[in-house]
């Protein structure tokens, strides 16, 4: 179950990262960075 959860989280992290690189709006990139923070912490099972 946890591996599935981490897999889903990884996919979302990659999609957000891809979105950051594609999008030229700085505000959108900043928002994406903020969203990535807790997701990465969760992916690594730190928090």
């Amino acid at each position: 179950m946890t591996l599935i959860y981490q897999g889903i989280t990884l996919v979302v992290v990659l999609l957000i990262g891809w979105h950051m690189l594609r999008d030229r709006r700085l505000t959108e990139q900043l928002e994406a960075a903020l969203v990535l923070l807790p997701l990465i912490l969760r992916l690594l099972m730190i928090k």
Partner: protein
Amino acid sequence: MSSDSATKQARGKEDPGGSGRAPETTRGFGNRWTALGLLGMTAVIVFLVSLEFREMWRDPPIYPGPGVTGQGQLSDYFPGIEDTAADTDVYFLEGEEAGGTALVLGGTHPNEPASSVTAITMLENAVVTRGRLIVVPRAAHSGFTATDPQEGYPQFYRIETPTGTRRFRYGGRGINPIHQWPDPVIYVNGSGQQLAGPEVRNLNRSYPGDPDGYLTERLAYAIVEMIRQEEIDLSIDLHEASPEYPVINAMVAHEDAMDLAVEAALLLEFEEIQIAVEPSPENLRGLSHREWGDATDTKAILMESANPIQGRLRGATNEALIVEGADPYYQRAAEMGLLYVPFGEEGSPIEERVGRHIQSVATLLEVLSFHNPDRAITVDGLPGFGEVMEKGLGPFLAPPHD
């Protein structure tokens, strides 16, 4: 230029090859380099906050006193929690004379600090001359690794000793969700009680436990197995509750322990400790005072003291509120008659809460020993309530050392 041709020109810029792929957004002050920079910053922030969060994974040291004669793990009683975050230290204080056995369980809810601090203070001071005392200072070990979300709780609090500062973790009410996930929508515990989903991680809703259940249920099962295998006569589960909660400054006793609790409460009056005695409701399942008593031969008692940082009326949520326990909003609530405990300007400091717990445990042991001489448990070295109130808690905690 017609509007059509302008639109075509703009589209051409976005998708010059006409590939049909999603176009990159062209307007804005960002570019790939800003994105890469932000990704780098994100990585740095993740690294820094990880250090802080991982600091909570380390157990602050406990310095067992001269009375500690042995140490084990809870998984010794049930290997189903071995190598998990739920496994925790168990300390033994055994007297030279044979007698009964008592259990003091601290840290069932790691957001109730007087619970584990009482157990630690006992470990560092108590010397058992007759019988045996088993102390578990961090029953919900995993719960000490994270605080509850959206509460703004501090991760640590400090208590000054005469020669240094002891640091303790302030944890969450339940098992850390990184150790047990996901929560169900409704949790039906082993006794059939229906509870809100997050209660699946609440140790004191999971008794008597399930050897094949959730991690919390396995932890509860291990504790019940310890009570069974060690033939524990008296089991005390230490807690705290918010000052507006009705069951506060109280003992909740299983019917098998009711006489013991009532007599102890009367004796505690002589120590200027007013403590209520509540019967364990028969239809409130999953809690220690009910399930320990039903599942084993132990006399089960749960104790509560008043902890303002858990309450909904609290003001500034910080270390001072944990340790000093003063809060103007609770003081106002007390003036309005909304609380179940007295709450003045001095608040409800941790030395008062721990002192109450220690004195109550000592009195329960005295009463148990008086009525069961062959199962007596005699403990020396424990500070009394008055002593703790006069000197503070620091002198009764070992100074930090390697």
